[in-house]
């Protein structure tokens, strides 16, 4: 029930916190009372949000966006403005309803117009809508201007009696330096509240929401203050205080919200804030003609320009990283981005596998000494060797003596056979056929600009035909010795064009074992290098059945040790093709990414006492391949393992330095090969570290067999969970 009307109540709360880019309910809980310091303004603001969100739902906009407050927050500001400027009454109520929907339309329009440049509409709809109303209402004779502003104390007296008035006055008369006073007034002005108390409450909310945003609000404001001093203006003057929030919002937006917070984003705040000052002052003098305030226009203009400008970069030397997923808080954005970068740098969009069975050696890698040069440098030559490093039996006088000769060559990824050559003689050992450089070849089309090529195949061994649709791992032909090949080997390259002589293209191989110095290591994505012994991960049926997450799959558990004794999960996929596991009871979601033989969890949102949360941590990285004694390690985004309320200092320092760490480890048991499917017990740990010292350790265990996952245990200081798959 609660989930069904999420768009309503969450949308309501988020419309408040969204003003500061947040979805923090605690923040909303502070902002709502602040708006009610002016009773009618608060009321009209609230009505405006409810009008807008309900209208958006009725018209049929995305409930997700309504829930996040994307539409509501501009109307909220418009409602607050109207409530402040005009006397309450039926006329204002009618006007409010119309204004709310107008604001909604402007929001949606802007979403379409600038959304296609992947730019947010920020608070532009509010600025436009309120201007329209300000300009037009001069003709609305039924409306009367509010005079409460002058008599706030009267209002307060009516609400809370003498004591409230005293308290209010005490706060506002507090002896604080004028620059801080202006900072608080500027914050309050965002909600049309011109009082230190409101500003302080908002600052407190900001701190609860995000330490980074809070720091940035100061940084932005003081950067402006310094700039004003340099140019000889005084920011603490009353007129400027009304526009001070532009600097604060700009700083939060580019310092940490739309850009990953780091030393460079902080640095750019110092450069951009003065631009906002110039825009503010100049726009102010234009708009003065029409007797219009600038509101948040300078912030909107400069932030949008800045974000737009960044999109034209062709290399990232500025140290500014724009987001790929918005997690609605600078901290979450930072931790998740750092983690993503650490885990997935160099990862390929299309996973490509090794084109053979068994273990082969890279005889020539990228930028090889023989033929992999210039435009053809991103290629591999594979052969097979014995433990003495020899590639052949006997004397190696015949192609048949070579271990790799006659071995199946398989498709590296799904695709369509683009081109085959199959009638070139295999060379005798030592001879090259330079007339047909590539020899017998198969080219597979994986997408419009992505092809793979396998060359020097054995004559008449190609089993596929042009136009055949094939799946990765399907046999294509046999390794041979045709073309420019003095002894049998397999040439493998990826390319952007469909021709036999096409240039190579840099692209990594996904999910394979690499044996570089006697031990097999799992490589998630990488470039096999010369002399590496490489092999594909072969899926073990028990592991695959346990860990593979296919949309539609349902998992059910009987649980001991969590609040709910039953858990039901479903694997789903959303409109943006993100895949996730959703818990039916709590609505929690664990997002994951699937590779050819691996699954990585990437994000969790929802109830951190649910079984799904513990599963997210324990199954953070798994492989379907069984390798005796294999150990997988990884690291978590800090905020998803540490308690976000206990990271205050880390959050403050996070853009520059992280002293917390959350390490993942999963161990596959040591055992011989077994007939499939097998029973396995995997165990692992999650270690929270402070300055590399382990502060807390969780242990977990998976028990699985041919039917998939049977049991999952998770043990920590305060958690003892036993879950049985049913």
């Amino acid at each position, binding site marked *: 029930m609660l989930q069904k009307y999420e768009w309503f109540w969450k949308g309501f709360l988020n419309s408040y916190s969204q003003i500061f880019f947040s979805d923090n309910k605690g923040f909303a809980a502070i902002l709502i009372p602040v708006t009610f310091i002016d009773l009618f303004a608060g009321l009209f603001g609230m009505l405006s949000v409810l009008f807008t969100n309900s209208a958006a739902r009725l018209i049929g906009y995305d409930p997700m966006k309504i829930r996040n407050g994307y539409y509501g927050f501009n109307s909220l500001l418009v409602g607050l403005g109207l409530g402040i400027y005009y006397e309450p009454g039926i006329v204002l109520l009618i006007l409010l309803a119309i204004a709310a929907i107008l604001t909604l339309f402007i929001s949606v329009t802007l979403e379409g117009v600038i959304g296609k440049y992947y730019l947010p509409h920020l608070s532009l709809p509010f600025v436009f809508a309120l201007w329209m109303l300000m300009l037009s209402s001069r003709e609305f004779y039924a409306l009367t201007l509010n005079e409460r502003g002058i008599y706030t104390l009267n209002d307060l007296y009516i609400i809370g009696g003498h004591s409230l008035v005293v308290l209010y006055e005490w706060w506002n008369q507090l002896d604080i330096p004028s620059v801080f006073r202006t900072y608080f007034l500027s914050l309050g002005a965002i909600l049309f509240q011109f009082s230190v108390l409101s500003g302080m409450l908002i600052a407190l909310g900001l701190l609860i929401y995000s330490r980074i945003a809070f720091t940035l609000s100061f940084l932005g404001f003081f950067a402006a203050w310094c700039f004003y001093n340099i140019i000889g203006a005084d920011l603490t003057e009353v007129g400027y205080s009304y526009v001070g929030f532009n600097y604060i919002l700009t700083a939060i937006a580019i310092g940490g919200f739309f850009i990953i917070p780091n030393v460079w984003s902080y640095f750019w705040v110092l450069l951009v804030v003065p631009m906002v000052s110039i825009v503010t002052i100049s726009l102010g003098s234009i708009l003065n003609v029409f007797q219009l305030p600038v509101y948040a226009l300078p912030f909107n203009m400069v932030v949008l320009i800045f974000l737009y400008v960044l999109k034209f970069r062709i290399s990232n030397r500025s140290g500014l990283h724009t987001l790929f997923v918005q997690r609605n808080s600078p901290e979450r954005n930072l931790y998740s981005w750092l983690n993503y970068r650490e885990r997935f740098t160099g990862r390929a969009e299309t996973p490509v596998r090794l084109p053979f*069975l068994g273990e082969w050696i890279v005889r020539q890698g990228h930028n090889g000494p023989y033929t992999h040069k210039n435009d053809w440098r991103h290629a591999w030559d594979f052969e097979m060797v014995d*433990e003495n490093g020899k590639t052949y*039996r006997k004397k190696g006088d015949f192609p048949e003596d070579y271990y790799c000769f006659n071995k*199946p060559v398989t498709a590296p990824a799904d695709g369509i056979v683009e081109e085959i050559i199959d009638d070139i003689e295999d060379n005798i050992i030592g001879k090259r056929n330079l007339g047909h450089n590539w020899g017998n070849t198969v080219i597979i089309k994986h997408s419009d600009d992505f092809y793979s090529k396998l060359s020097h195949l054995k004559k008449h061994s190609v089993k596929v035909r042009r136009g055949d649709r094939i799946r990765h791992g399907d046999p294509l032909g046999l390794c041979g010795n045709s073309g420019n090949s003095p002894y049998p080997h397999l040439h493998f390259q990826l390319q952007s064009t469909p021709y036999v002589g096409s240039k190579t293209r840099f692209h990594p191989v996904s999910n394979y074992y690499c044996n570089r110095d006697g031990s097999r290591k799992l490589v998630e994505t990488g470039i096999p290098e010369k002399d590496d012994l490489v092999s594909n991960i*072969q899926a073990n049926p028990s592991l695959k059945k346990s860990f593979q997450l296919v949309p539609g799959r349902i998992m059910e558990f009987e649980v001991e040790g969590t609040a709910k004794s039953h858990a039901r999960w479903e694997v789903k996929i959303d409109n943006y093709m993100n895949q996730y596991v959703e818990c039916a009871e709590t609505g929690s979601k664990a997002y994951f990414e699937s590779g050819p033989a691996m699954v990585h969890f990437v994000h969790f949102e929802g109830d951190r006492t649910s079984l799904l949360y513990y599963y997210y941590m324990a199954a953070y990285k798994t492989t379907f391949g069984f390798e005796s004694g294999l150990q997988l390690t990884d690291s978590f985004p800090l905020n998803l393992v540490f308690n976000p309320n206990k990271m205050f200092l880390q959050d403050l320092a996070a853009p520059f330095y992280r002293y917390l760490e959350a390490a993942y480890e999963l161990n596959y048991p040591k055992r011989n090969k077994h*007939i*499939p*499917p097998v029973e396995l017990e995997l165990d692992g740990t999650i270690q929270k570290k402070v300055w590399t010292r382990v502060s807390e350790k969780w242990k977990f265990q998976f028990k699985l067999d041919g039917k998939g996952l049977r049991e999952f245990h998770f043990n920590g200081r305060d958690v003892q969970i036993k879950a049985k798959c049913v």
Partner: protein
Amino acid sequence: MPSKFGLQVRHDPITEIDGVPVTSLLSRFGSPLFIYSEKTIRHTFREAFRAFSSRYPNVLFSWSYKTNYLNAICKVFHQEGSWAEVVSGFEYKKALANGVKGDQIIFNGPDKSKADLQLAVKNGSLIHIDHFDELYELIEVAKESNAKPNVAIRINMDAGIYPAWDRFGFNYENGEAWDALNRIMHCENLELAGLHTHIGTYIMSTEPYRIAATKLAELAIGLERKYHHHIRYIDMGGGFASKNTLKGGYYPGSDTTPSFEDYAEAIVSALMKADFHPDHQPLLILETGRALIDDAGYLAGTVIATKRLADGQRASILDAGVNLLFTSFWYDHDIRPAVPVSDQTEETAIFGPLCMNIDVIRKSTVFPLLKKGDPFVIRRVGAYNNTQWLQFITLRPNVVLIDKGSQVHVIRSEETLETLNDLENTPEHLRVH
């Protein structure tokens, strides 16, 4: 290749094995002496494994204990990832004692006592049923112990070779195999995990393997259709020939024996052609013994005497005979001098030390003129000799293993009089004579 005058006979001496001089081995460990090369075992194993694993996604070898169950030898194979394939209660216990886990032992053969079956069921071993009497007994054992053992049936068939080994397992062509499979599928106490065959021994052609694999795959697909039951493994047994020359063979075995690559190609191509769903592609198990170990074993010894026979033929008497070299009944063993000798050769009869007429290692072979005390080495004796050797007239000698670092380890000590006497009991009234 031979010309019309036959093969040129060369007698390059084998003076050292893995860098250790044969003469020093003989002086340290006595003569005769079995010598194993760990390097060769591992090399051969990996070559075989590579031949299959580069063609088929999931391959397992299971070491055939009867071929050579010296513990050290078994353990080399286990270290390489092999399971144990045993054919008696004794071998079964030997494998357990070697640290092989119960569920990694394949129990083959026609002779499994009830106690053996009980033990195998308890340990979760794979039991390959040989006949209906065993099947019924196993059902009984499984019921009694309330377990559901993993079983397979051994299947014999016409794979185009003579003689067809129809005495082991259930016949494919006459429908007995299906009878057994139906019986198992309708039995709640047995889990049909795999299908097993072993088409024969020393198969010099790869085609029979292709036929056998095709027939097993047909059975497996038939089971999928009829019972929706997925076979988890196909065990192709062994029977790969080593490079020894069979008696009566015209060409030397090293030229005529198919390579692991050839066997692998035949078996795997048949399995890959079968209609297995990729998610249910069965594990391929191989139990090859002889081809994996023959090359790694040497028998070194000393010439006892030379003489002329009645017809003037030269004869050499060695200190190693058929008591140690059971395979000399099948092979024309390759005997080499262990020190450089003259190139001069002569048709020679080679006899063992036994005072028995049957002790002939080579009836007649072109051999250099060795004299009393000269050391010799017989190649490719790793398979079956250390399991089938006889304590007959003489005692069994030391067996050594040369490891990868050329260190020599005694892996089985020579027998002494006490070894045998300790087992004997003389009744009181016979003690004095």
